């Protein structure tokens, strides 16, 4: 055990002495989060960009409604004209458009809100948040209109009181959750690829020791071949755990993206995948004659399987055949687990997913151990 820790200490020192390691192990996952944010949302950290087109003039009721929308959490409004609004929605500069048509204020005062349209190129998912809250607001004001009928003074008095009342909205919203889930899915997808790559890179150090002949000296010391491999596995697992923790912390606290899954559950699930990654890395190490061979296998296996499993884009958009193929890939089962956890399923109900991941890790590791033990050539080692 002492020797294993001694080896682990050297591996960690050598790894983190190189600046490139910091970039590869921690910089890339963070860059992946940024990329996910670019793909799935604006750089403003998840706020909804709403263009407002006012065709109802400067009526107080219309202005108040615009202020109400402006005051919503995570909503940023831009006053615009009709031509610009359509162009900006189409180009993605705006997420949705709110059109106050002539007669809007009067219709609210009459207790029958009308002449208000909410448009979006991204569908109901994007408009739902504003629509629900706006409906709530207008229903209340319309109720005042209905209660006061044609008594304008009574309406103004009650409406003035209503405006004074404190009105606070919860920042949680349907639109945010959907967007953050997508960002999380994408970030985790990239992270899986980085975990697989870093596991293969780190286990590739075993091959490098073989090429550099230092393993001969290591194994002629009281260190056993098993201890040597375990030390490498230990270091790889530790670095992967750091990668996962840093990625999750950055995701949550630096970028404010709520994954929708408790931190501990997400960490545990990803650590399980880390074992799968290490198992695969050992398998590649066992079947590679040198580090170049391992790098070639890495390129041949990791990127295509990540692509098929849906690490780079949502699995739903893939053809059925590809979806079926992805069932044979561990990345698919991890992403499926995360998605189900985000949908509110408990970890305990995902036993099959977790068992499949454990099985992948075990099979990879056992085949690698069998291959190592069959090797009788000192030049090929273990």
């Amino acid at each position, binding site marked *: 055990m*002492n*020797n294993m820790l*001694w*080896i682990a200490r*050297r591996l960690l020192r*050598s790894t983190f*002495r*190189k600046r490139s390691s910091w970039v590869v192990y921690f910089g890339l996952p963070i860059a992946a989060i940024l990329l996910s944010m670019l793909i799935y949302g604006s750089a403003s950290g998840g706020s909804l960009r709403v263009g407002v087109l006012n065709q109802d003039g400067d009526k107080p009721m219309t202005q108040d409604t615009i202020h109400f929308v402006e005051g919503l959490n995570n909503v940023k409004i831009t006053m615009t004209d009709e031509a610009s609004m359509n162009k900006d929605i189409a180009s993605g500069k705006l997420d949705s458009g709110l059109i106050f048509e002539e007669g809007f204020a009067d219709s609210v005062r009459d207790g029958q809100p009308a002449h208000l349209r909410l448009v979006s190129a991204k569908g109901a998912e994007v408009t739902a948040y504003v629509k629900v809250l706006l409906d709530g607001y207008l229903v209340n004001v319309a109720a005042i209109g209905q209660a006061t009928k044609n008594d304008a003074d009574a309406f103004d008095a009650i409406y003035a009181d209503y405006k004074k009342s404190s009105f606070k909205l919860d920042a949680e919203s349907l639109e945010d959750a959907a967007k953050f889930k997508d960002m999380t899915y994408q970030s985790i997808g990239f992270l899986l690829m980085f975990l697989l790559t870093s596991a293969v890179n780190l286990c590739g150090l075993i091959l490098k020791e073989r090429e*550099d*002949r*230092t393993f*001969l*000296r*290591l*194994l*002629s*010391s*009281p*260190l056993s071949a098993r201890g040597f491999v375990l030390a490498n596995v230990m270091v790889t697992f530790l670095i992967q755990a750091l990668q996962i923790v840093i990625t999750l912390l950055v995701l949550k606290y630096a970028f404010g993206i709520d994954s929708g899954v408790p931190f501990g559950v997400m960490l545990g699930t990803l650590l399980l995948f880390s074992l799968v990654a290490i198992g695969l890395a050992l398998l590649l190490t066992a079947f590679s004659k040198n580090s170049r061979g391992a790098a070639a296998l890495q390129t041949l296996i990791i990127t295509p399987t990540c692509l098929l499993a849906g690490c780079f884009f949502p699995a739903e958009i893939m053809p059925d055949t590809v979806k079926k193929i992805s069932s044979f890939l561990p990345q698919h089962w991890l992403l499926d687990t995360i998605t189900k956890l985000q949908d509110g399923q408990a970890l305990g109900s995902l036993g099959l997913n977790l068992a499949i991941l454990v099985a992948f890790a075990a099979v990879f590791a056992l085949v690698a151990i069998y291959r190592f033990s069959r090797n*009788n*050539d*000192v030049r090929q080692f273990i």
Partner: protein
Amino acid sequence: MNVLEIRNLTKTFGDFIAVDNMNLSVREGEIFGFLGANGAGKSTTINMISSLLRITKGEVRLLGKDIVKENKFAKMNIGIVPQDLAIYEEMTAYENVSFFAGLYGLRGSLLKERTEEALEFVGLGDKHKALPKSFSGGMKRRLNIACAIAHRPKLIIMDEPTVGIDPQSRNYILNSVKKLNQMGCSVIYTSHYMEEVEEICTRIAIVDHGKIIAEGTKEQLKSIITDTKETWIGVKNAERLDLDALKGIPGVNAVRMEEQSVKIISRGEINNLNWVIQQLIRDQVEISSVEEQAPNLETVFLTLTGRNLRD
């Protein structure tokens, strides 16, 4: 007392027998030369002694203990200087020695002391902070040795420790081997340079096809071939030489070409020099000198194995 005893040692790879029922012993305080051409089985033997390869049959005892049963004890008491440099280029000389010594359980002030001692011993004390990539080939070889001796093993196995280095570093290493031996270490030394083996080894074994075919002091080995003589003939146009015709001359045991001269080993009682010279004349080879020499280890090796050590 024997530091190392090898009894009926055998290693097979499938049908191929790499080491064939080998018997050997290395006494305490010896520098033991282990000679053999490439593929003779010496590396396989060394790898079994160092526990890098499983033994197929037989036993190896270090200081009286079976190396398989007492594996940790054996490993603690052996130091390996591999033929290929086994050092980390990204670590300083001090870190390299300290790391490998640490694998033998050394820690703290003792580790520091032994590391410094090993670096001083190989003449790299003032380079302890330098990275090996800034070292010459000879300095790297010396660092390779320092990594093997810091834990003070009883037996040091040196596999071609002087390959590809300058004469100055070679002398330094040879003197270091002698010094280690004076300090009480037993050494197994393999080399392709016969003159090194002659200079430092107290006893020598010649291995061929996985078997020890001769063993003893250099004088004892030379006495095996007292009935042979060695003739060096300097030639100018050696490419015209018909080596097979020379080998066919009565009494000729072996023929070896070396740049501008041909070495002929013959049975001592047969005077075949006239026939040799007639053959050279027939081949239209220009003779520049003829010299008869007393047999040396090279001759012994060539006679016994039919191969040059560098083959």
